[in-house]
């Protein structure tokens, strides 16, 4: 018999009632997904860390105002996206996500592989991750945003449309173009 994991909404509710462990669980559960969404959108680790902090600060501060009518992940990635756009607008005084550009990641973080995998495996992992990161970075900003919301946030079409403020058809089109481009780029890096 396996224990059923508590839902995100339940954890947030418990945090609002004063349980900080619930918030820590929530953070651990979504940390990497939010991190990859931010880092792969802005392409800059320092900016991503700053945004990461701002996003989770906002989650903690606004937890009491969260309405369970929407999934927690939808709410979380809405916050993340809004923070990201605000930050980039402030830094670059740009209004369109398409015009924000993308900073190609610099030196990839030091790779860690399973013990005993050997240096060759480490190199292969490094190359694979680097290829995917580069491919995502080369997508147009709005396509990148949409595909990251789907792959990292695991949001539905309707949720992505709601988060990005566009209609479902537009979102569907962005995702198709993004996936086609991604496949093409990954084939080149293969």
């Amino acid at each position, binding site marked *: 018999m396996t224990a059923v994991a508590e839902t995100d909404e339940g954890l947030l509710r418990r945090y609002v009632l004063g349980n900080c462990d619930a918030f820590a669980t929530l953070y651990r559960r979504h940390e990497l997904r939010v991190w990859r969404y931010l880092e792969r959108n802005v392409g800059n680790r320092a900016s991503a860390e700053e945004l*990461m902090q701002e996003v989770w600060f906002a989650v903690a501060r606004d937890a009491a105002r969260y309405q369970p009518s929407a999934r927690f992940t939808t709410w979380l990635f809405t916050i993340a996206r809004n923070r990201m756009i605000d930050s980039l607008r402030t830094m670059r005084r740009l209004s369109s996500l398409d015009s924000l550009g993308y900073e190609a990641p610099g030196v990839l973080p030091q790779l860690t592989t399973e013990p005993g995998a050997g240096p060759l495996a480490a190199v292969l992992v490094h190359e694979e991750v680097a290829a995917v990161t580069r491919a995502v970075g080369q997508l147009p900003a709005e396509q990148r945003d949409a595909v990251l919301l789907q792959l990292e946030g695991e949001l539905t079409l309707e949720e992505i449309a709601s988060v990005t403020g566009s209609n479902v058809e537009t979102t569907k089109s962005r995702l198709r*173009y993004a996936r086609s481009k991604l496949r093409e780029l990954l084939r080149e890096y293969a």
Partner: protein
Amino acid sequence: MNKLPPGPEPYDDADERYRRASALDPSRPGAAVRRAVLEHAAQVAAARAGVAAAAAPRPDERGGRRWKQRWWRPAAFAGVAAAALAGLMLAPHWLAPLAPPAAPVERDGAGRAPATTLAPGAALAPSAAVPTTPVPPSAGAPLFGHARPPAVAAAVPAAPPTAVAPPARHIVAAVPHSAAEQSYTSTGSAAPAERAAAQSLAAPAVPAERTAAQSLAGLRAPGGGDGEALRQAAASGDVAQLQSLPPGVADLDARDARGRTALMLATLGGHATSVAWLLAHGADPNAADADGTTPLQAAVAARQPEIVAALRHYGAR
């Protein structure tokens, strides 16, 4: 021609490759970010709990508030009642005329009062005929007589008029108090004025200020002279009448039967303007009544700060 979007490919190798690479991606936010986030979350939770605790009082606090609401009301009422009782005890001491404040009694050479005097009760019972026999003075001053506790009234020494050696400027009580005490119970054969007085004893207590003013009705005797008119004007706070009195005729410090001057009566009535007028025209600020109470003491007891200030300005002690 626009390029058509690619067809739906919900899960293709690109997605799979992306997921595999993401799982291998060691990139993570720094430990400082995680620490800062969790610390901030704890602070927000603590602040939220503090606000909630402040907004919602604990049950014992609510009980405490109810308890406080319960206890202060009786305490306040008790305080007011105690003050009222003290006022009732003190006001007769200072204000109640033990003798009818009628016109000064003319005495013959033997010190006997004439047979006919003004019925003090006539002021409160205008229809009562003037009696042909002396009327107990306390019956004529029922407004204070009823407020005096019987024990206190009995303790007042009853002296015949001839036994009282009046001060040179005092009006002497003409009738012994014991007669008035008897009238409290012998209403059956009492004169109309006595019955009126007895009825007034059953009346509810009136405020000290009102009784002070009404007690002056007992002073209104025909042919009272300038001193009487002066005291009446001072007691009623009628500054216009004070100003209309012929200068130099009235003795500003003339006293009534209780030894009260116009200044004392104005003080007891709470008439600051009359007090100021009298003081400005030379009234003695330290003229005590028959009980030794000075105007300043009366003003302090009556909580009349304006009068207290005026009296002190003119050297009252």
